[in-house]
């Protein structure tokens, strides 16, 4: 039973999260530096270039990296303070095994022996599919590739998936349906070139901060900005047009706009006729979704919907940018298709300044979904279910195609199978489901049922507390490899320092597990470079072709955009320039977007809409950023954003404690009364665990195609509990907040 071995307070005391507030030798002016390592930020999909300053094999600071063209030195506060995750008191420096009284240090032999022995025992008793692997999109592409190979040829299980399932998979499915390829079609430089930027469901200023400069540069050159969001996000403050839509109604807004584009005959008929298919069916699907109807569903005034449609269609070029707001819904794929349809109807693809583009969120959210850690995928973006794709990869791997298992469960389905007792063993890396999956209580109960649970991590996350074995892995700056940024630009990550103590590089741990599972011949690698070289060959000929990419080219050319089929190929910054698409017909496809409401509606018991998201100073489940003092100070604890009129009805003033309850659970937290949110909606950021987890409330219903959970909309009830404490304002006052109260102790 994978239950935490000690109560939460004892585990927090020992393993954190604690704050790291200062560089290793304190705040010294002009501290001596042994070397400077050019690499990229460990956090989001922007993958900003950064220089890490190293002294005595410790990362002690950073310098802006002006020579990297994407960000030219720019960084958000997370990037500025990322170096403080090094030399951290919570860092795991040796393998741990669970005992009756707590975690105790173990040798690598003992720890890995226990992991492999238990996973094999479970498979012997319950079949190969009784164990699963969880991966993550902060891993380098080499690690993601190795995990896929480990699942298929090491463990021989169908079940491997990754936390990118919680990120942008709805976009991936939508783009594959429309274009046959899962990548943002444009390099970010195209944003600067465009005439209208339409941002929907993307809090760019806080979740992809560097993209802000691209949008502002477009506006300098005369572009107009339309923002659709339930909140007036920072990027929306000066927008030309703001569409404050109700959560979960994105496809209605986009379909209403498409209806207006068709009704006003603003369609690019030549483009549609020559390069697309399915327009008539898509037009038929929106025939009833008039702007008037859409206004009723979305709460956006009809005049603004029509104005937005005209602003979008009348401009010579346009970029439509979307992120999790659109994708984190049980109709995430429909929303994405509606966005793509609007772009295609106006011929916005394959040209400078033209395209619908997903803003991939995680550091290697793009690369981590290309080469095999998805449940249905093989390297090169190939399909695990396709016999010819299986044969191509099996040839590189030197195995019989029949040895490869068939597709398995997606990330949340794996947790459901654990809950049912069908999956009994789990190996997890770079994934903190106890914070990031919807319906926290259910996730916690499921984890407790595992017969064996091994976690590879550098800090003891909320989830790792449930582990039987914790393998001390590597931080981003302790290993090298490649990632692909949100642009589809493949980049080289360089190691700055070695792992501390007995911690090992993740790659070495995964390879070691593979060998101990008896799959030595599939894991012959002596270095990460050898892994990458095999990955290149395994991707050759696939949609996601890395065959022409070398580590040397990545350094020399500031990255290479895939596909890049041979070493003389320059890479492909902008997809579809010849207006042919890797679909069976070579045409881009419209996909019909019939209206479907959110899975859960408001009613008398739960009358208010609820949505979640992020803040600029925290990253995903907070595993790293909640341990960096300066980032904690910037937003120390979750606040419930509440609109003023609603707050008045409840008798709530700023800082009061409120209780927010959904059909899954309840959370008490301070209210932040603000006019920047819709009058019928409340918002809580999700970066915290335990009693502070917004995901105690969220609805675990999945999109039927992408299997993404519906984080962005459910129904709640809000009540005033009483006076709280003054809300910590985001001003530059000295804050004295201690470490946040993290974890609730299960009785």
């Amino acid at each position, binding site marked *: 039973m994978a239950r935490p071995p000690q109560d939460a307070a004892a585990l927090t005391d020992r393993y954190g999260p604690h704050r790291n507030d200062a560089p290793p030798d304190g705040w010294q002016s002009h501290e001596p530096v042994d070397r400077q390592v050019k690499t990229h930020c460990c956090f989001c999909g922007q993958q900003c270039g950064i220089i890490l300053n190293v002294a005595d094999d410790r990362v002690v600071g950073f310098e*802006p990296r002006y020579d990297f063209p994407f960000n030219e030195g720019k960084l958000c506060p997370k990037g500025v303070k990322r170096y403080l995750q090094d030399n951290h008191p919570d860092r795991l420096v040796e393998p741990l095994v669970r005992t009756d009284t707590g975690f105790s240090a173990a040798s690598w032999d003992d720890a890995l022996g226990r992991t492999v022995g238990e996973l094999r025992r479970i498979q012997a008793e319950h079949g190969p599919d009784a164990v699963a692997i969880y991966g993550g999109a902060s891993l380098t592409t080499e690690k993601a590739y190795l995990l896929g190979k480990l699942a298929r040829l090491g463990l021989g299980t169908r079940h491997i998936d990754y936390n990118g399932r919680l990120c942008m998979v709805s976009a991936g499915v939508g783009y594959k349906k429309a274009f046959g390829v899962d990548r943002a079609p444009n390099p970010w430089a195209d944003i600067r070139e465009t005439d209208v930027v339409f941002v929907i469901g993307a809090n760019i200023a806080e979740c992809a*901060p560097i993209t802000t400069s691209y949008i502002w540069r477009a506006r300098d050159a005369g572009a107009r900005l339309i923002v659709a969001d339930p909140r007036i996000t920072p990027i929306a403050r000066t927008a030309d047009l703001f569409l404050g839509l109700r959560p979960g109604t994105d496809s209605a807004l986009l379909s209403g706009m498409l209806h207006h584009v068709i009704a006003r005959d603003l369609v690019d008929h030549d483009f549609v006729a020559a390069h697309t298919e399915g327009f008539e069916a898509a037009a038929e699907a929106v025939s009833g979704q008039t702007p008037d109807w859409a206004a009723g569903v979305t709460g956006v005034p009809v005049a603004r919907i029509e104005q937005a449609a005209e602003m979008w269609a009348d401009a010579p070029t346009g970029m439509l940018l979307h992120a999790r707001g659109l994708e984190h819904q049980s109709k995430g794929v429909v929303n994405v298709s509606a966005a793509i349809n609007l772009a295609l109807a106006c011929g916005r693809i394959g040209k400078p300044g033209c395209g619908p583009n997903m803003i991939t969120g995680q550091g290697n959210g793009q690369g981590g979904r290309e080469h095999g850690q998805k449940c249905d995928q093989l390297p090169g973006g190939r399909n695990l279910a396709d016999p010819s794709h299986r044969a191509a990869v099996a040839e590189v791997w030197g195995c019989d195609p029949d040895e490869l298992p068939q597709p398995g469960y997606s990330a949340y389905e794996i947790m459901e199978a654990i809950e049912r007792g069908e999956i009994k063993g789990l190996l997890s890396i770079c994934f903190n489901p106890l914070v990031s999956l919807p319906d926290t209580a259910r996730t916690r109960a499921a984890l407790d049922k595992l017969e064996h649970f091994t976690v590879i991590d550098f800090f003891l996350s909320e989830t790792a507390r449930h582990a039987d074995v914790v393998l001390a892995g590597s931080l981003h700056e302790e290993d090298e490899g490649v990632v692909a940024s949100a642009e589809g630009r493949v980049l080289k990550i360089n190691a700055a320092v070695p792992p501390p103590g007995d911690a090992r590089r993740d790659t070495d741990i995964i390879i070691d597990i593979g060998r101990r599972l008896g799959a030595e011949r599939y894991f012959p690698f002596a270095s990460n470079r050898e892994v990458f070289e095999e990955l290149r060959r395994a991707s050759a000929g696939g949609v996601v072709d890395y065959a022409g990419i070398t580590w040397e080219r990545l350094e020399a050319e500031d990255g290479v955009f895939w596909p890049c089929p041979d070493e003389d190929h320059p890479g492909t910054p902008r997809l579809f320039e010849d207006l042919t698409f890797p679909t069976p017909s070579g045409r881009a496809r419209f996909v019909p977007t019939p209206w479907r409401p959110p899975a859960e509606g408001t009613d008398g018991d739960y009358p208010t809409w609820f949505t979640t998201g992020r803040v600029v100073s925290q990253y995903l489940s907070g595993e790293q950023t909640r341990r960096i003092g*300066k980032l904690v100070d910037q937003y120390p604890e979750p606040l419930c954003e509440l609109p003023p009129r609603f707050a008045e009805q409840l008798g709530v003033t700023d800082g009061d404690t409120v209780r927010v309850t959904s059909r899954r659970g309840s959370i008490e937290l301070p209210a932040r009364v603000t006019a920047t949110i819709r009058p019928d909606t409340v918002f809580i950021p999700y970066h915290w665990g335990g009693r502070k987890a917004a995901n105690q409330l969220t609805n675990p219903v999945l999109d039927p195609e992408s299997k993404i959970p519906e984080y962005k909309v459910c129904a709640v009830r809000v009540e005033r509990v009483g006076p709280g404490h003054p809300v910590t304002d985001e001003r*530059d006052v000295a804050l004295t907040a201690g470490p946040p109260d993290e974890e609730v102790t299960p009785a």
Partner: protein
Amino acid sequence: MTDESIFVIDHSRCIGCKACVQACEECGTHRGRTMIHLDEIDHGPSGTRQTAPTVCMHCTDPTCAEVCPADAIKQNEEGVVQSALKARCIGCSNCVNACPFGVPKMMSEIDLMMKCDLCLDRTSVGGKPMCASVCPSEALWYGTPDEFASGRRGVLGSGFVFGNQAVTTKVRVVVDESPGPLDVLAGRLAPQQWLDDPFGLEEGA
């Protein structure tokens, strides 16, 4: 001279992310202490928030230096107004109270006034200030006037009127139309019509 770099603030670009605040304290001359102020401003009748970064404006005739009884605040040849000299500063906070932009910070634990010095350690050797290097929105920006003119919109102002006091600064601010002087107390209204009713409650769906 158009090849001399200038520091430009465009408040309308600010997204309130505090990268500037976090990066300022990484600057070698005052590591661990940030000199930047990031203020939240209620914006327009709907109370939507705007954020505004403040660095030292490096006034041509700096009020802080004028009111300093210890003559501790010096301006260099390039017009950069520096932190108080340790040997002279008496910690009286006159400068903190007098600065029209609210820039100087009294560091009571070391009994010294400190303020933004335009990252002299960087800018004096051809580098960019830390805040203007990292700013994701280019609300804080450093470059030549030609570079500004080639990629950026807006008129640069460097004159301010605070009631009876007129101030000219080395740091420029992006203004909408005329280069100023900007009457700070008069305020300016947001141009976007939707801000009057951001969620369309009066407009009706």
